[in-house]
């Protein structure tokens, strides 16, 4: 009997690629199954207009940058784009940039998140920021579902063992007792 276990860190971000020949191919993630992941991936890549820029580009540093470099670059950029110091006509654009910078910093300063991001980048994926969060949320949601139904199964199993005891007067229980010939308990 298998109890499915989800290993942390084995997230499989699905890829949606368009080949030159025009074949539409899609990879359904094997484990865990992400609903609509492929569709969201495509939407994500086209979303937000910042298709080409990676977190590293945004911060203006190289991909192998150290944590110190990341911090410094973030501080510099943040000072430049903080909504409080930006000129009024550029406020909207700067605010957007600032939010992206924040996300870039949060991702790259956390080693495990950075590792995941680098892996995606190596595969040529530039996810728009919000959808990556969505994937993670979905993953979490799915593993929460799994825990929940595992519990539900346990309870059902326990219940079902006692279900046909003589106190149960339902039609089904009576017939099952008759059929099995013995009264349980």
């Amino acid at each position, binding site marked *: *009997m*298998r*109890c*499915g276990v989800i290993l942390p860190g084995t997230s*499989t*971000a*699905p*890829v*949606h690629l368009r080949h030159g020949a*025009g*074949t*539409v*191919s*899609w*990879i*359904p*993630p*094997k*484990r*865990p*199954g992400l*609903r*609509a992941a*492929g*569709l969201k991936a*495509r939407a994500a890549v086209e979303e937000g207009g910042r298709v080409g820029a990676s977190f590293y580009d945004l911060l203006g540093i190289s991909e192998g940058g150290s944590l110190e470099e990341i911090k410094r670059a973030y501080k510099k950029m943040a000072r430049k784009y903080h909504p409080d110091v930006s000129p009024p006509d550029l406020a909207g654009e700067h605010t957007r940039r600032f939010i992206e910078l924040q996300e870039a910093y949060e991702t790259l300063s956390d080693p495990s998140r950075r590792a995941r991001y680098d892996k995606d980048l190596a595969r040529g994926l530039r996810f728009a920021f919000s959808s990556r969060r969505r994937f993670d949320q979905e993953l979490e*949601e*799915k593993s*929460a*579902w*799994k*825990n*929940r*139904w595992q*519990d*539900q*199964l346990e*309870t*059902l*199993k*326990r*219940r*079902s*063992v006692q*279900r*046909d005891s003589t106190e*149960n007067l*339902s*039609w*089904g*229980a009576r*017939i*099952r007792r008759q*059929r099995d010939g013995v009264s349980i308990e």
Partner: protein
Amino acid sequence: MIRNEENGWKIDFSTEKPPTPLLDTINFPIHLKNLNLQDLDQLAAELRADIVYSVAGTGGHLSSSLGVVELTVALHHVFNTPEDRIIWDVGHQAYSHKILTGRRSRMHTIRQTSGLSGFPKRDESAYDAFGVGHSSTSISAGLGMAVARDLLGKKNHVVTVIGDGAMTAGQAFEAMNNSGYLDSNLIVVLNDNKQVSLPTATLDGPASPVGALSSALTKLQASNKFRQFREAAKTITKQIGGATREVAAKVDEYARGMISAPGSSLFEELGLYYIGPVDGHNVEDLVTIFQKVKAMPAPGPVLIHIVTEKGKGYPPAEAADDKMHGVVKFDPKTGKQFKSKSSTLAYTQYFANALIKEAEVDEKIVAIHAAMGGGTGLNHFQKKFPERCFDVGIAEQHAVTFAAGLAAEGLKPFCAIYSSFLQRGYDQVVHDVDLQKLPVRFALDRAGLVGADGPTHCGAFDITYMACLPNMIVMAPSDEAELMHMVATAAAIDDRPSCFRFPRGCGIGIPLPCDNKGTPLEIGKGRILREGSRVAILGYGSIVQTCIKAADSLINHGITVTLADARFCKPLDSELIRRLVNEHEILITVEEGSIGGFGSHVCHFLSLNGLLDGHLKLRSMVLPDRYIDHGSPQDQIDEAGLSSRHIAATVLSLLGRPMEALQLQ
């Protein structure tokens, strides 16, 4: 090519038949038993490719089957069909089921004459436990089978698969209510793809789910506070430690109440044990759950809530507004359908245009349908008058009485329900509408034979069941212009209920009334289309066009028949009928309906008025007293004996020229 990559299976869709090495070894579910989970995943991918390739060549229902590939594989792997029964609600998602149960080699014949049925059918295969086509019947049937199993002392399992759309029908609740009470072992799989109304419901894409049920189902999927509750519950149980069994069970119940998904009480209150939500595309999860439930001695009725995506795995379907629910032949690479160009629109479209026109001048006109916005053309009405179009979900009974309530308050409701689906709301038509003489207008689409969908969707009985009602006005247009006039006529009938029927298919290309606005017809008056002698053909409905063809072919035999379009079955045009009887020797009535309809009413009228006491030879041509299998519309008409050839042959035989009748092409 179907490749296994580290992220999962990759399918290249092309016009070539996909290589399916694993699926090729599967003929029957028994061949699934020894596959491991990796194999099952591969099988699911190959099934997807096979379905897309197959449906691309035949047309049919695509995305619903794609959504349940993993479910089908898991079910057949765990359960032992056909002894274990699997019942698919509606059945249009059962293509992978058919492939896995010995019918793969015939999938290219699906929905065609003499081919596989598009829905499960008992006399097609032992693996099809119950015939379906109309929705929401699976739990009722499943419960019946479970109870029979118990009475007969058998041990097989019964599994029913129902969608969230079908769940909105009253019958599903009736069945769940009863199953909770009877407590028989039964597994209900609720396939939730958030498509409570068909994705064709509105012109702008899928409708937001109809009804309170869907928000309940959505809540079930949320898991915000879940983790905290679960941890707390576990701690409590741990602290109690060596408590007796009853106390532990009680704690579990309490903890379960805390950790159970909000909203699952809906099913729990009905007496079904709720498990879920479950990722419906994860074969491993599904297999685990099914195995565990199968192993339990007495689980009682269990509801497993799985979440799937309609059209999963085929990007064009996932992206399409209507999710490619029902398709004609298409190109597998792009998903582009090969829709034939027709110079005329479908009758459905003419109906919608006419109704919109009427609603523009009369703001009391409202439209009601039962989860069939695209199928009834009311998606166009909804776009123009969003506050006056009501989609009640799959609930025909409610739709009819709801319309009656609207009519009682002075509004003018048009109820657009398919002829065969209105059967479900028949008592409401009789008791709530006709008995009280409320002016509800019924637009019966898909009247007569419907082609590939087959007998479950065939509208054979509506003339019979409507015309026998004392207050109902029953009419049928012979072409699209007549249809528009009848919409106007129905709008004008404000003192009693009325109905009109029209078939599946396109118009004949007749000039339409100006600006799509029809003129009300005189009630109870038909029209003569051609003058002739000796023989009169009185047609009712679109079959008048077939009568015209028959009349044309008879000219070659030197016979000029009188051709009349009855327009009304109730009240009959008695003057016209008397005239036809008095001036002709032979009267043939023709309709695309069962016995008890137009022909019977004419016959009854004639007999009551002494018109059968004389010289007249009367024949009624109706649909035969058997169900006509699915197939092309022309094949079905031939099988039913209502083609122009049959009509002409009847005339010739009655004229004493049987040899010519036999020689007709």
